[in-house]
């Protein structure tokens, strides 16, 4: 949209066109939004989807999708989805509890300001930095481990779990919980203390307050935030790659392997079919969320 274009639009919009009907140009205001959606969401998705049907020689093929049944891709798909779901649910639960603790305190208190600022930073702290922070602290050569070990606590006695998928879940929680605090806090702020007082003055118990008043109001926001956390974990790459470099346990790593193998195992079409698989999984989760949301937003 050029600045010069706007006055022209305004004059034309006010003038009756042939046939006496006013031709509305209000939709012009949405152009930037749709331009954004098309160029950053639809176009890349379309390029990926089309590329997924291309064979190495340029023809059309379904082979890229049949490769998705390779045993290691099936395993990676299950691992990635499970990891994302678990860290989303645990992160959402713990993040919600933390948010509640903050809300019950003073609205301008030091605790709230510190936790919110820290969450803002930590929610973006994923990647190699976070992975190395874990390696350097609780990793097998980290100072925490060496200290614990010298005091008789060898928490890696049964293997170095930090470099396994469950270990990855622990690391992911370090950016999942702060993200939950950031997105769930506004919803909690919307809960008025008067509602609780009203419940109590009508003889309601704490359980009844949460079950019939606060719960139904917060649940849609909670679900939405959980979905965001799921997508956040599902698409993460650098953290996983730094901690578990061998065997590529996450789908994002499989895409990377298929795209940029320097030993000649590059299959760009296959990489795109994995991306399509990821889009489908997130779509399915979103559909499930929408159905649940519809039920949850019905009062009681």
């Amino acid at each position: 949209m050029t600045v010069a274009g706007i006055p022209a639009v305004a004059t034309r919009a006010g003038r009756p066109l042939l046939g006496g009907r006013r031709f509305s140009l209000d939709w012009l205001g949405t152009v930037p939004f749709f331009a954004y959606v098309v160029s950053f969401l639809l176009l890349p998705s379309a390029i990926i989807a089309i590329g997924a049907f291309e064979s190495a020689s340029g023809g059309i093929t379904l082979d890229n999708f049949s490769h998705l049944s390779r045993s290691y891709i099936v395993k990676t798909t299950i691992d990635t989805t499970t990891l994302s779901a678990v860290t989303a649910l645990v992160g959402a639960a713990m993040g919600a509890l933390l948010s509640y603790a903050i809300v019950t305190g003073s609205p301008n208190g030091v605790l709230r300001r510190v936790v919110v600022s820290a969450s803002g930073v930590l929610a973006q702290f994923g990647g190699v930095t976070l992975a190395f922070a874990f390696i350097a602290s609780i990793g097998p050569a980290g100072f925490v481990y060496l200290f614990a070990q010298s005091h008789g606590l060898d928490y890696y006695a049964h293997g170095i779990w930090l470099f396994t998928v469950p270990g990855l879940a622990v690391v992911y929680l370090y950016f999942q919980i702060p993200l939950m605090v950031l997105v769930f806090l506004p919803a909690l702020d919307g809960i008025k203390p008067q509602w609780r007082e009203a419940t109590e003055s009508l003889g309601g118990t704490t359980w009844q307050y949460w079950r019939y008043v606060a719960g139904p109001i917060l649940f849609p926001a909670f679900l939405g935030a959980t979905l965001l956390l799921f997508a956040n974990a599902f698409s993460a790459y650098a953290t996983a790659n730094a901690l578990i470099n061998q065997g590529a346990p996450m789908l994002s790593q499989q895409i990377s392997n298929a795209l940029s193998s320097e030993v000649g195992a590059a299959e760009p079409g296959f990489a795109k079919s994995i991306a399509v698989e990821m889009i489908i999984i997130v779509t399915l989760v979103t559909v499930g969320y929408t159905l649940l949301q519809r039920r949850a937003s019905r009062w009681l």
Partner: protein
Amino acid sequence: MKLGSLTRHLGLAAVALLAIAACGSSPGGGSASCSESAAKTTTSAASCGGMDALVAAAKAEGKLNVIALPRDWANYGAILDAFAAKYSIKITSDNPDGSSQDEVNAVQQLGTTSRAPDVLDVGMAVALANTQLFAPYKVSTWGDILDSQKEPTGIWFQDYGGFMSIGYDSSKVPTISSIDDLMGSAFKGKVALNGDPTKANAALNGVMMANLAKGGTLDDITKGVDFFHNLKQAGNFTPVQATTATVKNGTTPVVFDWDYLSAAHGTDVPSWKVFVPNGAILGGYYAQAINKNAPHPAAARLWEEYLYSNDGQNLWLAGLARPVRQAAMEKAGTIDKAAAAKLPPVNGTPKFMSDAQATAAKNYLVAHWLAAIS
């Protein structure tokens, strides 16, 4: 049209003058010369009037375009300066941190322009995939390069590289004298590869080296995969990406990597040692190639002559890279002994994977690696 033919005649005159100058500047070299058109297609210095004629033609061109040569990689900074000073040729060093693929892309995109790179230093996979872009040339020390390290007509020829090795922090793990030592309990969760072997070349070579050490052949990487499977079962293999940071902090005190890269960890970790198992000397080398559309064909060929001279080879050696003529120079006594002594020791004949062998290894790894280490 007139202008065109005038320039052409001027050009011819210039070439003729150069040829005369070349004759004049080669004392005792006879009447040999190396014209620009001859330089473009010549496959050796001898077939273009000899070394002196090539030097004269290169000096007349006065310029050389190189690409993707970091000054701190394999001592290239010193090499570029020495070449420029020795022959008074101005070097344009483009995109020093580029990759091998970037070099090939530049050759294709810049075509016959004067900015196109004259010479390339590329990884083997890229060299083999782009042979149609290169001009054949044999340096005068061609005979010192093993047959397995060059294309017979001189389309590409390996320049420097190293051997796959096991680097380790001797303050954190016991001395390693055989690959089977890694199965011991002192190595629990400590052995790493430099990358995933289905993706990274260094890691694939790491598995192949273990394969050779366990009695396998270059044609069949099975024993290498089995070794890492057993290492994983013993709890000794760590899936962490080995980096300078993980080496420094001790998370990956044992790493399979190229010896010249591994030896560089010694600056961070003084107790770092590099070990190459007997009978498992697996080489990995970069290769030189000349752009067939090189804008400075004589300078390009002179650059190769310089790199493969004793001076050029010793300069690479000073950067911890093993020059391709090292064995021949050791025999002839022309090697820089002080620089050679800094390299990790190896005993035996180095082996090199052919393209077909590397592909077979890759295919086996893609099918079996994940199952082996999970």
